[in-house]
């Protein structure tokens, strides 16, 4: 191989491709656009716990109805549900317009009915366009009603005494302490039945697991591979351009070796793809806070893979008899590959059997190993056999390009 001619070919192609720098910007821009959209969507979804709004029209306006309303805002439930007191009309209007997860109406006479063990109807309207939060509100409401029923069964006498004493006036200390003692005695009586220590619960801490990378990071390898695949496919069409402009025919008439020409074009492609990979990786590393010690290994892996894709796209395109067919087939192949290889949805987030199929695609293989490199504890985590596979794939693609040039593609 004539290294001087390899070098001349690299300079020649880089100078030519630089004239078409718009293409490089497009190859960079599309994945950044898609990546930005995906990242913003994923980040938006993981930004916080969804909360629902429960509207309560308290027509009873008593201590007990206030306790019911307050029960929804207790502890962790309060993080899920935001309670708003509304009038009946406002509540009806807002739940009809889907402006809340649920609307609870506590009717007038609720407290009296509870104390007298009379029937009473609480009305809960839920928002059908939501699924989880209205269900939680409904469950909590049912639990509250059950709690009220058991309180009636357990503390019926005490409740009757309170009712007889009348809640409108301030009770005496003796009355309150008497009620408290009676309630305490009643609870102590039933405690062995309610809280039997029959089951000894041992809480076992789960083994510590590796922290799971966030979804946006899992998208990164696929997005980078998208940029690489676009650029590799675009650069590969340069063989057809050279053929159409007659320079390949002139080259065949020259003593320079075609292998040097192929090597020069591959080296030029490596430079461009390396630049694109470097920019996308740099942005990804900076955005996700990935350790910079992994940058060189990631860039080497992606750049080598890019030259491999360039070689195979070129070999594929050179099999066709005209440029249009070559370009069409190459482009048609590109998008299923991107889809299968996890550029539109990360393999790590797919069911294992689908991810296994995706990893069989060339770009899926590369993206999978890049994911390993990006999420591993240390740099150079891609195993040696995977590097060998990549080298063999790249060299065989370049060999096929050389073979096609010699067997007629360059001579037509």
């Amino acid at each position, binding site marked *: 191989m004539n290294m*001087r*001619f390899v070098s*001349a*070919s690299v300079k*020649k192609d880089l*100078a*030519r491709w630089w*004239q*078409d720098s718009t293409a490089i910007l497009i190859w960079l821009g599309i994945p950044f656009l898609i990546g930005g959209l995906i990242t913003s969507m994923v980040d938006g979804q993981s930004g916080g716990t969804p909360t629902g709004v429960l509207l309560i029209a308290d027509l009873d306006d008593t201590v007990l109805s206030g306790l019911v309303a307050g029960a929804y805002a207790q502890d962790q439930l309060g993080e899920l549900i935001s309670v708003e007191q509304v009038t009946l009309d406002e509540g009806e209007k807002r739940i009809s317009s889907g402006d809340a997860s649920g609307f609870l109406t506590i009717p007038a006479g609720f407290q009296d009915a509870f104390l007298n063990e009379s029937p009473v109807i609480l009305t809960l309207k839920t928002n059908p366009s939501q699924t989880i939060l209205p269900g939680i509100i409904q469950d909590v409401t049912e639990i509250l009603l059950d709690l009220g029923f058991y309180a009636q069964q357990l503390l019926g006498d005490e409740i009757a005494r309170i009712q007889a004493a009348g809640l409108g006036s301030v009770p005496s200390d003796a009355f309150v302490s008497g009620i408290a003692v009676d309630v305490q005695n009643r609870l102590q009586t039933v405690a062995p039945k309610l809280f039997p220590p029959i089951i000894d619960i041992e809480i076992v801490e789960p083994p510590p697991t590796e922290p799971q990378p966030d979804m946006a990071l899992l998208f990164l390898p696929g997005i980078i591979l998208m940029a690489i695949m676009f650029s590799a496919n675009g650069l590969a069409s340069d063989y057809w351009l050279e053929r159409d*402009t*007659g*320079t390949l*025919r*002139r*080259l*065949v*008439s*020259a*003593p*320079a070796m075609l292998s040097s020409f192929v090597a020069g074009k591959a080296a030029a492609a490596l430079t461009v793809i390396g630049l694109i990979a470097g920019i996308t990786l740099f942005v990804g590393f900076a955005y996700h806070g990935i350790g910079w010690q992994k940058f060189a290994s990631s860039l080497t892996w992606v750049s080598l893979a890019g030259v491999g894709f360039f070689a195979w796209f070129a070999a594929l395109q050179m099999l066709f008899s005209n440029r249009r067919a070559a370009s069409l087939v190459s482009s048609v192949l590109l998008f299923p590959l991107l889809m299968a290889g996890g550029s539109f949805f990360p393999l790590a987030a797919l069911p294992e059997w689908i991810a296994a199929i995706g990893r069989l695609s060339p770009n899926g293989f590369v993206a999978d190993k890049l994911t390993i490199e990006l999420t591993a504890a240390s740099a150079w985590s891609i195993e040696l056999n995977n590097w060998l596979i990549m080298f063999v794939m790249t060299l065989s693609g370049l060999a096929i390009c050389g073979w096609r040039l010699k067997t007629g593609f360059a*001579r037509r």
Partner: protein
Amino acid sequence: MLEVTKLVKQYGDLTAVDTISFGAREGSVFGLLGPNGAGKSTAINCISGLLSPTSGRISVSGHDISSDGKAARSLLGVVPQELALYEDLPAIENLRYWGMAYGLRGQALADRVRDVLHHIGLADRAKDLPKEFSGGMKRRLNFGCGVVHKPKVLLLDEPTVGVDPQSRARLFDLVEAERDAGACVLYTTHYMEEAERLCDSLAIIDHGKLIAQGTVAELKSQLDARDALQLTGTFPAPGTTDAIQSLIASIADLEIISQDDNTLTLTLSGASHHLPDIFQAISSAGGNITETSLRSPNLETLFLLLTGKELRE
């Protein structure tokens, strides 16, 4: 310098080049003349190594193009019929690249590129992109890329097709300069006037076969100063043939070159003086002449006489 011996190139049943042999020496221009599709480009592609000959031998300064291809190709310069340039690479970079493809480097390359740029008149446009050039400028750069390495044998495949007269004259000067510098130039064309102007010797090719070869003077002498008379109209056989044959007694060197129902081609000396007799004979045989073409002796006439058809058909 360039020896082609019994060259054959077949594509299946089609024989594009049929056992042609010729030689060209240094410091001369050898023309390969023939109509479109005659096999000129196929022959030149075999010589340049683009095509593998079916049989025959091609030698460049003693190097066989098949068995010692790299050495042979290093002595060849090719100026293809179609432009073969990087239109998105400055003119000077085009020349540098092709110079390196032929092994030039360093100061020798830089000097040669500078000389060629002056030679082809593009020194002031060296850093411009060819896609911004006129057609004639591109042709000159295309020529420059073929001669940047000072080839011993320069192959020019119809370099003036589609070129304006001014650029054509400039290209002629460039070819003559290469010849004067000692190169052996193989020049294919279907323009007879180009061959007459440039070529020291030439071969006429038709349907893949060489039908005449020699210097321009030698080939013209085959005509014996006879004119070519081509008549178009209606010429019923055998009456017309008999009428013309009857004239041969009075017109000594009259000869029928070709004849069909609508075209009759004759050769004779001083044709203009015999036109009335010829018209009378054809008319009396029931023929009808609608068009007459009379040509004085030149290579075009020779081709017509050799093949019975126009060179540009």
